[in-house]
C-alpha cells in the first residue's frame, strides 16, 4: 500500500493506493499517529484503494474517535466494495462519506 499525504495547515488529506489489510494497516497506523496532532480537517481519499479489511476499519474507527474530538473527518471516493463493507458494518452511519 502506498500512502500519499498532503498537508495544508490544519487540513490533512491522505490518499491510499492499493490494499488496506492486516499486513498494511500497521503502516497507516504509524503514519496517522505522527500526522494527526493539530489537524482540524482530515480527508481520507480512498479513490485508489482496492479494498479494506477489518484492520483498516479499526484504524478508521480510532481516527474518527480522535477527529471527533479535535475537528472533522471525511472519507471521499469510496468504491463499491468498500462501501458495501461500510454499510454491512454500520460504518456508513459513523463516517462522513462524500
Amino acid at each position, binding site marked *: 500500500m502506498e500512502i500519499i499525504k498532503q498537508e495544508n495547515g490544519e487540513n490533512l488529506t491522505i490518499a491510499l493506493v492499493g490494499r488496506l489489510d*492486516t499486513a498494511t494497516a500497521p503502516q497507516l497506523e504509524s503514519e496517522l499517529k505522527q500526522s494527526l496532532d493539530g489537524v482540524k480537517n482530515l480527508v481520507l481519499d480512498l479513490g485508489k484503494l482496492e*479494498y479494506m479489511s477489518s484492520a483498516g476499519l*479499526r484504524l478508521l*474507527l*480510532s481516527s474518527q*474517535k480522535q477527529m471527533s474530538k479535535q475537528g472533522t473527518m471525511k472519507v471521499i471516493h469510496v468504491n463499491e466494495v468498500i462501501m458495501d463493507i461500510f454499510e*454491512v458494518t*454500520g460504518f456508513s452511519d459513523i463516517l462522513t462519506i462524500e
Partner: protein
Amino acid sequence: MPNKSIREMTDRERARYSLAARTFHAVLILSLIICTAAVWFGFSLYRNSVNRECRRETWNISQTVYGALDKTGAEEKAREILSVYDSLSDEEKKDGSSEEYLMKYSEVMDERFEKLCAELQELKEINNAAAVYIAAADQTAGRMIFLAGSGPADSFRAPGSYDLLKQKDLEALLYGAEENMIDRAFGTDERIPSVIDDAGKYGSRCTAGTVLGGYSDYIVMVLADTDMSRIVSGSRHFLIRYILVLAAVSVAAGWLMVRHLKKTVVAPINRLAEAAASYSADKNAGQALARHFDKVSIATGDEIENLSYVLKDMENDMFEYAGDLNKVTAEKERIGTELGLATKIQADMLPNIFPAFPERSEFDIYANMKPAKEVGGDFYDFFLIDDDHLAAVIADVSGKGIPAALFMMVTKILVQNITMSTHSPGKVLEAVNRQICANNREEMFVTAWMAVLNLRNGVLTAANAGHEYPVIKKKDGMFEIIKDNHGLVIGAMPDTKYKEYRIQTEPGDIVFVYTDGVIEAENAEGEQFGIDRTIRALNMAASENPEEILKKAHKAVDDFVREAPQFDDMTMLCIKYLGSAVDEHSGESANMKQMSAEAKKENIAAVTAFVDEVLEANGCPLKAQMQIDVAVDEVFANISEYAYAPKTGTATVGIEILDNPKRAVLTFIDQGIPYNPMTAKEPDVTLTAEEREVGGLGIFLVKKTMDDIQYEYRDGSNILKISKNIE
C-alpha cells in the same frame, strides 16, 4: 334355404327367395296336390258312371236279342257245332284260326246256319249294337268258342274259331264285374253281368250275354257287344280340359295371392326396411339423425301397421337417448381433459427430471409416483436447502382422486416453504401440521416422512408423521426396516410434536421410503405384496443405483399383482449417500488447490496472491474477488494472531471452484487451539463511533460478505470453510 344370408345376396337371388316367390311356389304345389286328388277322384267317378251306363245298355241289348231269337234253331245249331268241336282231338284244336281246323266245320254251314246268322245280323242292326252272336264257353280249356253271328269285330267269324277266355271274365259275364272301390265307398255299386275290355284286339268294347243253354261242359250264350271307343275318347277330352282348367285356376289363385301379399305385407315391410337402412346410413355418414320412420305411413290394419307404430316409438326414444348421450359424452370428455391436465400439473409439481442433481457427487436420488386414478394423493419431494443439506419427503394423503390431489398440493408447498427456513424435519412437520389443522374441515390427513441429509457428514435427521417405516441398507449390510418413532398423522391434532432422530450414514448407505400402496398392492387372489417381499426385492437390487433399485422394486410389484387393478397410489423414493465431495480427513478434494504457510501476518500477501491466482483463472468478478481477499485477510490474520499464541504454527489454505452455482470454497486448517469463530460475539453495528469497540469486526465481515461459512474441529484441527458465489 340358401347358404348365404339375405344381406349377401344379389337382387336376383333375393327375388327368388322373396316372400312373394315363396308364396307363389307354395300355392302351386298345394294346387298340384289338390288337383291331382280331384282329377283322380272325379275322373274315377265319371268313368264308373259311364261304364255302368254302358254295361246296362249292353245287357239290355243282349236280353232283347235273347227274347227275339229262335231259340230252338239256335240251340240245335250250337249243339251241332259243339259236337264237331268235341270230336276233334286236342292236337287238332290247337290252332283255332288255321284253315285246316276250320275246314272241319264246313258241313255245319248249311241253310239253317245261314238263316241263324241272318237273324242275328238283323237283331244287331235293330239294336244298334257293335256285334250280336252266339258263343260257348269252354271252361276247361279257357276258350270262348264262336258259334254264329256277326262276330265281335263286326266281321264274319268262322264257326268253331275261338278266343282265349279268362275265368275272371267268364264270371263277370255270368254274374257281373267285381266291385269297384270308389263305387263301394259311394254306395253306387251295381252288378251288371258284363265285361269291359278297354283295349282288346277289337277296340274298346263292352260285352254282355244271356245263357241259352248248356251242352256237355259248355255254356252256350247269346252275346251282344257295344262300341266304347267314343266314350273312351270323350272321357280323355274331359280329363284334359279338367286338368287345364284346374291348372289355370291354380296359377290365377297363386298370382292373386302374391299380388295381395305384395301389397299388404311385402311392400310395407320393404318400406320399414328402407327407413331403417336410411337411419343407419345417416348414422354411418355422421349426419344428424333424421326421423325416417315418421315418414312411413302404413294402413294395413294388421300386425304390420302395429309394427310401424312400434318402430316410430322406438325411433323417438332413440332421438331422446341420442340427445342425452351427446350431453353426457361432452361432459365426460370435458372431465377427461381436465383430469388429464390435472395429472400433468401434478406430475410437473414433483421433481421428475433424473438425474436430479448431476453436478452433485455426494448423493444419488431417484423417486417416482404411480397414481391409482388419474390424479393421486401421494407425493414425494426433494431439494437442496443449501449446498450441504438435502431435504427429502414422502407423503400419503388419505383418500384418492382429486380431493387427495388438492390436499397433496397444499401439503407439498407448505413443506417446501417451511423447510427453507429451518433444517429441522421435526419443526417442519410441526409447522405443516399447524397450518393444515387450521383449515381442515374435511378432516383429511397426511402421513409423511421427512429427512434432511447433511451431505458433508452423512448425518440423516428424520421425523415420521404416521408414515410407513423407512428401510435402510448400511454399506455392507442388507436392507432393514428402521422402526422409527411414529408421530401422529398430519392434520389430526393442531399441537402435535414430532420427535427427530439421527442416523449416521456412511458412503454407500441407501435409504428407501415408500407409501402403503406398495406393500398393500394386491394380486388377483387378494394377497398383499407386503413388506417382506418389498425388502427381498430391494436386496436383489441392492448393488444398483437408486433408479435401478426403484425400477426393480416396481417390476417385483407388477409381477406379483399381474392383471389385478391398482387400488392405491404407489410411490417410492430412494437416496444413496456417496460421501462428502470434500475428503473430510485430508481436507482436500481432487480439484482443490492448497498452500501451507507459517501462520503469521507477513504471509497474508502470499496467501492472497495464491487465492487471487485461482480466482482470476476462473473469471471471478472483481468485486467478489475483493470480498474474498478481505475474508482471507481476516481469517488468516485471526489464525496468525490467536491459534498458536504465543508460539507459531502452520496454516493450510485450500481453494476449490465448484459449479451450480459457480462458487469458490476456501478451507482454512490449523492445528491451533480450538476456536469456533461462529460463536464470536457479533458487534453492535448501530452504536456511535464513541461507543463502538474495535474487536469482532473481521469475522462479522466474513459472515456478511460470504454466502456460507462452516466450522468444524476434528482430529485436533480447526477446519473453517467459507463459500462465495462467483457467478
